[in-house]
């Protein structure tokens, strides 16, 4: 039955027919655009909070692993396992502890960002050339000064590349946050899964959001690193 409904032809695009046929109806979209605004901002909220907390944790862990080399393997192992657990499974397995709602969604999303961010920050720090560090030490920098004035600035490309991946990934995963009771654009997609107009608008907004965040971080990268305007993937 559902299959029949979904396979209705594309030609009927206007009026009541279009809606009852689950079509792509521009009129409906214009009239109902309001309903996407709140979930859109929920989605931004989930993304920004999760990536923000994730970055704070991953950054601290990376500094720890940078200082105490032996902690790197266990940290990267644990973050990798967290990354491997499917998000939907995590949303349900967390619920006995964190209940239904934003908290569960955010805890799971944070767990996802850790591996990406940690791995990228470590790569960035490891890629700083030994000669540059030697030069810094020769100028009398302490370890702490070396870290903040030399190593971290030079690691910025990798760090921000990680931030971009983490952000777009989180926006995608947040569409499943409704399983945890976290709302967002995914809740709308799921409500009318077979209605083309709905799917296109909600899905399109998620993709748009990812593109905007990606460009924002790319812009940040240019501002933060005037010394290498050219490169970067």
């Amino acid at each position: 039955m559902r299959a029949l409904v979904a396979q209705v032809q594309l030609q009927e695009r206007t009026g009541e027919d279009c809606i009852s046929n689950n079509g792509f109806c521009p009129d409906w979209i214009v009239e109902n655009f309001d309903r996407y605004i709140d979930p859109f901002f929920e989605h931004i909220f989930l993304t920004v909070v999760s990536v923000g907390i994730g970055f704070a944790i991953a950054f601290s862990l990376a500094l720890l692993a940078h200082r105490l080399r032996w902690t790197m393997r266990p940290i990267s192992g644990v973050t990798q396992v967290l990354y491997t657990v499917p998000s939907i499974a995590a949303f349900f397995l967390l619920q006995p502890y964190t209940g239904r709602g934003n908290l569960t969604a955010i805890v799971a999303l944070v767990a996802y960002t850790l591996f990406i961010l940690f791995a990228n920050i470590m790569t960035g720090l490891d890629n700083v050339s030994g000669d540059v560090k030697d030069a810094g030490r020769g100028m009398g920098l302490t370890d702490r000064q070396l870290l903040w004035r030399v190593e971290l600035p030079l690691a910025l490309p990798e760090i921000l590349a990680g931030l971009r991946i983490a952000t777009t990934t989180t926006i995608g995963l947040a569409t499943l946050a409704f399983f945890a009771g976290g709302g967002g654009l995914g809740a709308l997609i799921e409500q009318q899964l077979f209605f083309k107009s709905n799917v296109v608008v909600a899905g399109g907004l998620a993709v748009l959001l990812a593109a905007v965040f990606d460009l924002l971080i790319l812009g940040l990268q240019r501002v933060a690193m005037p010394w290498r305007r050219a490169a970067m993937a």
Partner: protein
Amino acid sequence: MATGGDGMSLPAAFLGPFGDAIDFILHERESVSGGVQIGGPGEILELTGTHVLVSVVALAAAVLIFLPLGLYLGHRNQGEFLAVSVSNVGRAVPSLALLAFFLAYLGIGFVNVATVLFLLAIPPILTNTFVGVRQVDRDAVDAARGLGMNASQIIRRVELPLALPIVFAGLRLSTVAVLATATIAPLANVLTLGVPITEPQTYGDDGQRGAAMVVAVVTLGADLVLRLIERAVTPKGLKLTEHDDLPQRRRLSTNLIRRNKPA
């Protein structure tokens, strides 16, 4: 509420909510709304079977088509834009939106779900294969050419083995994403482990958690299997250098990567 059979009451009590979830996996029971028997090894195995089948079909298709393409493009150093932007765009498209989009336009069923999973699997496989081949030391390739190898020999015997860690990293990413997304396949009438998750009115909390646990175990298991396969197919000589964890050496190799990056 340890509703389980004989042996389960102790661990069930000990594990709290997860004890009940494990009990759901191990023992059949009546559904929450009554009338139907749900859970138990029989149903779980059947759902797991479909889950794995639809995922493997999608992954196999993606590997068969896009691994060779990535190898070829990497070898020729062409199509970087294609290989890299595919992954950037791919990451941004939410799997749920992709599935819903296909449902709305093509309808439900096994083939459509497999197609969606196939599309999800492409970016990591294509991008990583391309990047993996590109970062192979050009001197090694020149040496192979000097030994008289032709293009196909260079790809199979030099570039692919040296690219394996990155290729497998991509394959693992794809596998995890596909197995995770197969969980929402019941929305398209394909009965995977997502069934208890998407039908809480029948399966209840225990069913949701039980299925979530099985999904997590299957995914972690698949990741482990791929790691073992990677280890098995990596030539001995490469394993030796891999364990060489000296920072000095790593720096050297990253410098090489950088030098070889196309400007």
